[in-house]
């Protein structure tokens, strides 16, 4: 049972989709070169960058798992968002890594890594990034569809068809307009998404009440609902792991870094980071409030991931429901378009680099970029939507994310700031970053090692990955004979 009214709410959603598609298609005439397609000709300014970054990094999946964090951990569930804001503000203020990265004029991170570590490491890094990114993204469509089914009461039989139509629409303007379409539609989606988030939050605060939210958290979780260090499911290891994870994401998650690389200059890129930092607190806290409201209203439920959409389906009235659904579609579409373009840029710029013996013409480059995005779209449909994913979703996201983040962050920091870093260290770091998380995943699944894996837990495993990856970089680099000459940092 839901308050979604097909006439009123359906019209609001339809209008939003129409405006977005028109805007996305209108800017395609400005795309004449690969540089326009991938990094908007490096003409992006501060506020457009902030809107685009905030919209890209907030999708339906984010809304669901951050709400789940609020449901399961109370206000302490906002810890990852606070840590990400701190990391992003710190990086923006100091220019750590992002200054040399933007100054170098590269389009992707592996392109910079080649200057220090050589072509093979560039290619390997490109593969790691794309595999981690695509596997991570593979689950977005189905999870987003599940949210819409619960909130809007859509018939689950039509879930695949509806999400396919949505992805095709996004793919069309992304293929035609590249980063320019992504930026313009991200901006519109930022506005719609923000309006929806704010209105629903105000509704919840009025209906449920701030006191009841706080009392619910106190009753259910005690001090642990406010302090992550005393929460039995979190602790210092959770905080440290998330600090490492979010710092690595700020430095190396290509979809975030793409905004720095598209900025008109380094100073603008840094200002985008400092200007967007606090959004990441809101990214966790606002849906977190929705999750706490679900706990206060529904009480304990079997599936905590579905608690928030189930609650909203009857709490949000018609009219506002249309804005909420449009807001969530906006969140999802901005994420899908940015992510598709980002992984395309790494495939084209880095993985296909060995095949470009001579520079390709702009026409050929644009053709291949557009083809790659279409192929990514097909992969997402087949892998993420029509082929049901088995197993634990968050373990899956954690493993795919850590493989990427641990290795690439170590490589990037060493590339920018350690003269002795070389290809042996880079190769060792990549190997270690893949072996530890995958080993943990396998141990979790095997009956003979399951208990051991559980006692170690994902946070210690994750912390170990970052530390040992760094150690591998240092040891591998020092072991390389001095006779092999390496390139300089950018």
């Amino acid at each position: 049972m839901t308050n979604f009214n097909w006439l009123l709410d359906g019209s609001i959603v339809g209008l939003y989709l129409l405006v977005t598609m028109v805007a996305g298609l209108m800017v395609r005439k400005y795309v004449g070169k690969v540089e326009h397609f991938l990094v908007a000709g490096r003409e992006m300014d501060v506020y457009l960058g902030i809107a685009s970054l905030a919209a890209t990094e907030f999708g339906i999946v984010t809304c669901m798992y951050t709400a789940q964090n609020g449901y399961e951990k109370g206000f302490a569930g906002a810890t990852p968002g606070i840590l990400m804001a701190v990391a992003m503000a710190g990086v923006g203020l100091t220019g750590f890594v992002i200054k040399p990265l933007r100054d170098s004029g590269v389009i992707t991170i592996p392109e910079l890594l080649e200057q220090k570590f050589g072509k093979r490491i560039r290619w390997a890094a490109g593969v790691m990034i794309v595999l981690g990114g695509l596997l991570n993204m593979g689950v977005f469509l189905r999870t987003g569809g599940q949210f819409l089914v619960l909130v809007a009461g859509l018939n689950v039989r039509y879930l695949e068809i509806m999400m396919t139509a949505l992805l095709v629409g996004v793919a069309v303007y992304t293929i035609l307009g590249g980063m320019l379409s992504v930026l313009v539609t991200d901006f519109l989606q930022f506005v719609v998404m923000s309006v929806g988030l704010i209105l629903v939050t105000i509704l919840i605060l009025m209906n449920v009440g701030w006191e009841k939210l706080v009392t619910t958290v106190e009753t259910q979780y005690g001090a642990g609902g406010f302090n992550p260090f005393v929460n039995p499911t979190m602790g210092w290891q959770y905080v440290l792991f998330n600090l490492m994870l979010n710092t690595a994401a700020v430095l190396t998650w290509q979809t975030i870094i793409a905004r720095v690389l598209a900025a008109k200059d380094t100073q603008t890129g840094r200002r985008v980071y400092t200007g967007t930092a606090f959004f990441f607190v809101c990214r966790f806290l606002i849906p977190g409030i929705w999750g706490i409201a679900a706990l206060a209203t529904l009480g304990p439920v079997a599936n905590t991931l579905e608690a928030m959409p189930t609650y909203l389906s009857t709490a949000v009235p018609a009219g506002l429901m249309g804005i909420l659904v449009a807001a969530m579609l906006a969140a999802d579409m901005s994420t899908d378009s940015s992510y598709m373009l980002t992984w395309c840029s790494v495939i084209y710029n880095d993985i296909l680099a060995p095949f470009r013996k001579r520079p390709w013409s702009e026409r050929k480059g644009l053709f291949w970029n557009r083809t790659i995005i279409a192929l990514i779209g097909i992969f997402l449909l087949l892998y993420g939507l029509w082929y049901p994913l088995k197993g634990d979703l968050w373990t899956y996201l954690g493993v795919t994310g850590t493989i990427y983040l641990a290795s690439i962050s170590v490589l990037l920091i060493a590339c920018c700031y350690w003269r002795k870093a070389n290809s042996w260290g880079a190769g060792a770091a990549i190997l270690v970053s893949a072996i530890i998380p995958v080993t943990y995943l396998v141990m979790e699944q095997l009956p003979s090692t399951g208990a051991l894996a559980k006692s170690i837990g994902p946070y210690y495993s994750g912390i170990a990955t970052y530390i040992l990856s760094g150690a591998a970089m240092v040891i591998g680099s020092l072991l390389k004979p001095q006779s092999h000459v390496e390139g300089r940092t950018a």
Partner: protein
Amino acid sequence: MTIACVVWYSTITVYVAIKGAKDIKNMLARLDATRKKEAEEQ
């Protein structure tokens, strides 16, 4: 912090929306100027 978050987010949404719209206009104008200049040179 929660209330501060909601108030801040509401305010910044309006501010970024207005400034972002100007950024889009300026970005497209610069791209247009570059495109015309390159067409003339060719």
